């Protein structure tokens, strides 16, 4: 008997969706359970975790500079995100709410920087950062990553719809314009700050190419560099340890994903709106 449209929608579609969804996370699942295998059985194709070699994690943690690179990545990502939120909110606020000569021109110029792909400027950016004496330092890892017209644009969109009455009340209270922004507008910007913070943090945690270019010193390695180094070396890769390191490195983003999926989705949606 042919199923009716109704049953197909109620049973077939959800089943297809779940099967496809399981296929999507299958590689992640395999990474996790294979990270618990021994060096010789790591490639064995078994769907269930039957071995639990937690020593892989000990080895990954102690052998590869992983802890230091995680601290570096956390420090860099948090610093970039915090500074970027303040700078971008200030600029977005000025562009949305304040009146001054050249406003449109400055905004258009800032937006035009969005057309410049990173990979096109990576070499001159390296040369400039080096000339500023920031190469191979935390400065070089942090400072160039802060500036991004995209954040400014989204803050501007947000402040354009911000209720005027609050600012007028603040002005009556005798607050300066800067005071109005820092005491009133910025603290009320949580709806835009949360998704942008998640986006900036993830982007910086993900960052691989720029740290690869700007650092030589192993002490400055970020997590993605440390991971890439594990598989980029010689002819032999101890996959059980490499996968354990990858699992450790994935933990912060997974925590963020499960705690803040709603805001993550919100951030993605915002990025799709022109």
């Amino acid at each position: 008997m042919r199923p009716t449209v109704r049953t197909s929608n109620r049973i077939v579609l959800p089943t297809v969706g779940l099967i496809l969804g399981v296929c999507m996370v299958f590689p992640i699942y395999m990474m996790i359970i294979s990270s618990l295998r021994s060096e010789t059985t790591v490639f064995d194709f078994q769907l269930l975790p039957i071995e639990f070699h937690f020593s892989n994690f000990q080895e990954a943690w102690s052998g590869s500079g992983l802890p230091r690179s995680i601290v570096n990545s956390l420090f860099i990502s948090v610093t970039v995100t915090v500074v970027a939120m303040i700078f971008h909110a200030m600029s977005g606020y000025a562009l949305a709410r304040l009146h001054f000569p050249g406003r449109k021109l400055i905004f258009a110029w800032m937006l035009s920087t969005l057309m410049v792909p990173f990979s096109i400027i990576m070499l001159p950016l390296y040369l400039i950062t080096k000339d500023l004496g920031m190469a191979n330092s935390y400065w070089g890892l942090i400072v160039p990553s802060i500036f991004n017209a995209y954040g400014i644009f989204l803050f501007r969109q947000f402040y354009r719809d911000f209720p005027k009455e609050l600012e007028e009340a603040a002005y009556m209270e005798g607050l300066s314009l800067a005071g109005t922004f820092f005491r009133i507008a910025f603290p009320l910007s949580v709806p835009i700050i949360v998704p942008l913070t998640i986006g900036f943090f993830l982007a910086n945690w993900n960052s691989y190419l720029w740290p690869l270019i700007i650092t030589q010193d192993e002490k400055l390695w970020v997590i993605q560099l440390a991971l890439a180094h594990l598989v980029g070396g010689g002819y032999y890769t101890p996959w059980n340890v490499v996968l354990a390191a990858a699992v450790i490195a994935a933990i912060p983003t997974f925590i963020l994903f499960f705690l803040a999926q709603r805001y993550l989705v919100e951030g993605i949606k915002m990025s799709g709106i022109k």
Partner: protein
Amino acid sequence: MAIRPSPSRLEGGSTVAPRRISARTRNEWFTAYGFLLPNIIGLFVFVFLPILYAFYASLHDWNALSPKVFAGLDNYRKLLHDDEWWSSLKITLLFSVVYVPLLYFLSLLSALLMNALRGWTTGLTRTLFLLPFAITSVISAIIGMFMLDPRNGIINSLLGLAGIGPQQFLGSTSQAMYSVIGVILWINVGYNMIIFLSAIKEIPRDYYEAASMDGATGWKSFRYLTLPLLSETSTFILIVTTIGSFQALDQILVMTQGGPANSTEVSVLYIYKQGFQFLNMGYASSLAIALFVIIFCLSLFQLKLFSRKQG
């Protein structure tokens, strides 16, 4: 185009002073410039200046051994006859032509599927689809290398179950590019799916009711209702994805470094090698400028193409 606003634009409560600028207005200007200054300096030094610098460097013969010497358009003449550059462009184009349509259709289909789902599995399925997005590019490359291992990889085990012999994947000049594309697709479908899904959800339900009264359901309502209403989102995704596809480098650097036999050496990687490995700063800059022009023209062309279709 009036860049300088007239005094009457001060709806914000400021006094209108046609000649003398009031203290409050001046204060507003200072505050605004102060708020903009960090970003103006930062964007200038770290985005705008590099582009100018790249152009300047591209006109010079400049490498690790010799100092900078003005060379006019020599570097651009050189790239016209550089076989490796042309081959890298061809590989980039192949990547784009395979990756962009696949990403577009997979994320659109996933979004349609999510939109059609009802009941308790909906949230779970969406989470499953989006989870690979939480994987960083380097981790995705590591997982790819592990699963696609030519001797023992899980994908080969699965193929073995289907009676297909082991494949070389990253070790094969014909398969390496597709393997990399697969990995990059895997972590990016969820993101674009969410963008499509939110656009689909914005289409008012009565549109579909009206369409179904006219006899348009299923494929017809998708073809003549959903798809046209998604055209703006489609344009956005196609342009952003195309630009992104010209820049894919992380996974390639980790998984293949351009090999085997340069079969995955995309243009960005060739620029990277010229600049950071062979230290041909001038030449690498001319390649970067050339690629920038190509990406720019391609985006304009796409924008024109799609806006004409809509209009």
